[in-house]
């Protein structure tokens, strides 16, 4: 058995390096900041079709992530998809005539909500509604329409 103080040092080093490893995984590998809830406020938008949008999908404006989708539900009265988004509090100057559209990152990438600010002076508050929306583009539907149309033209 080695001298006890050397042993202590080695055990200390081992535990410290293990904890450093855990911190490395937490901070460098996963994005811990998305785990810590940032201050945010909620707005909702109604879409005819929310496509492959999921809870935790990003919400971005001008390509910058400003929040995430917190809930998606189906409204049985209007047959619309109600998408709830939590927007980080520091971005609290979205005008109330903002347009929300569902886009796809890349051809096969994940879907996200894009907010395009309008020109109004009134800002969206917590619980506010985005009135102007544009549904997700369903690729199969678009292809179907295209095929149908080109078949029609040939007649």
């Amino acid at each position, binding site marked *: 058995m080695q001298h006890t103080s050397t*042993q202590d040092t080695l*055990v200390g080093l*081992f535990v410290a390096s293990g*904890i450093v*490893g855990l911190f490395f*995984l937490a901070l460098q*590998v*996963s994005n*811990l900041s*998305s785990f810590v809830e940032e201050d945010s406020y909620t707005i909702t938008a109604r879409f005819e079709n929310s496509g492959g949008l999921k809870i935790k999908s990003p919400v971005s404006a001008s390509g910058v992530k400003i929040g995430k989708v917190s809930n998606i539900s189906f409204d049985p009265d209007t047959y619309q998809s109600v998408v709830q988004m939590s927007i980080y509090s520091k971005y609290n100057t979205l005008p109330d005539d903002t347009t929300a559209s569902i886009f796809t990152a890349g051809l096969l990438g994940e879907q996200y909500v894009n907010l395009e600010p309008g020109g109004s002076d009134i800002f969206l508050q917590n619980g506010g509604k985005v009135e102007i929306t544009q549904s997700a583009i369903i690729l199969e539907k678009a292809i179907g329409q295209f095929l149908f149309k080109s078949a029609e033209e040939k007649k």
Partner: protein
Amino acid sequence: MIQFLQYLGKSTRTSFTKLGRGTYFLLQIISGILSVIPRPRLLLNQMYSIGVLSFLIITTSGLFVGMVLGLQGYYTLSDFGAEETLGVMVAASLVRELGPVVTALLFAGRAGSALTAEIGLMKATEQLSGMEMMAVDPIKRIISPRFLAGFLSMPLLAALFSAVGIIGGQLIGSGLLGVDEGAYWSQMQANLDFQDDIINGVIKSIVFGFVTSWIALFEGYDTIPTSEGVSRATTRTVVNSAFSILGLDFILTTLMFGDD
């Protein structure tokens, strides 16, 4: 026919009594853990022989597993023009599966077998009975510190394994094969979740540490006190640990990553 039935009955009975003894032993260990707290020296010595001495093999294997993942992942992903997602592949497979499982298998081979042999020999040379004669509880003095040390070391070792592996994958991926370093890290950060991936991996490694230490100590404590018995117990430790680790991993994966 009767003989077969007899054999079946006997093996059922022995395996159940063994399971019972194992569970009772586990309860004894856990109730003995409290008495380790006033004697941190015992725990420290065991952390040294279980954790520190496993450090090298864990980090080396982690590095090589990560590098191999980097290579293989690159070859497959570049077929789809998706080599930027190499970081996600390496990190997800390490943090979710390979980190906890391979670490636990190595841990069972490196530390578990040593524990069994040590305790088995203590029993064979009647050191444990000697302790009892001196009114020293061998569970509290010998077993519980080792159990606690294994239980604490395993998550640390698994985290090290994954961390070193991810760095190894990056070394190969962006150093040798030319994947963009920024893409490697940013894709990884965007696609791995702290709670879903990292915490679940840590939970897995805690479970494996618990099971491996328990099996190793029980096989040692339950050994037939001869040299042949000790050798058999050591073998059983490695085999049973491997089975339980892989079986539990399947169950835990189904529970954790089932609905996505």
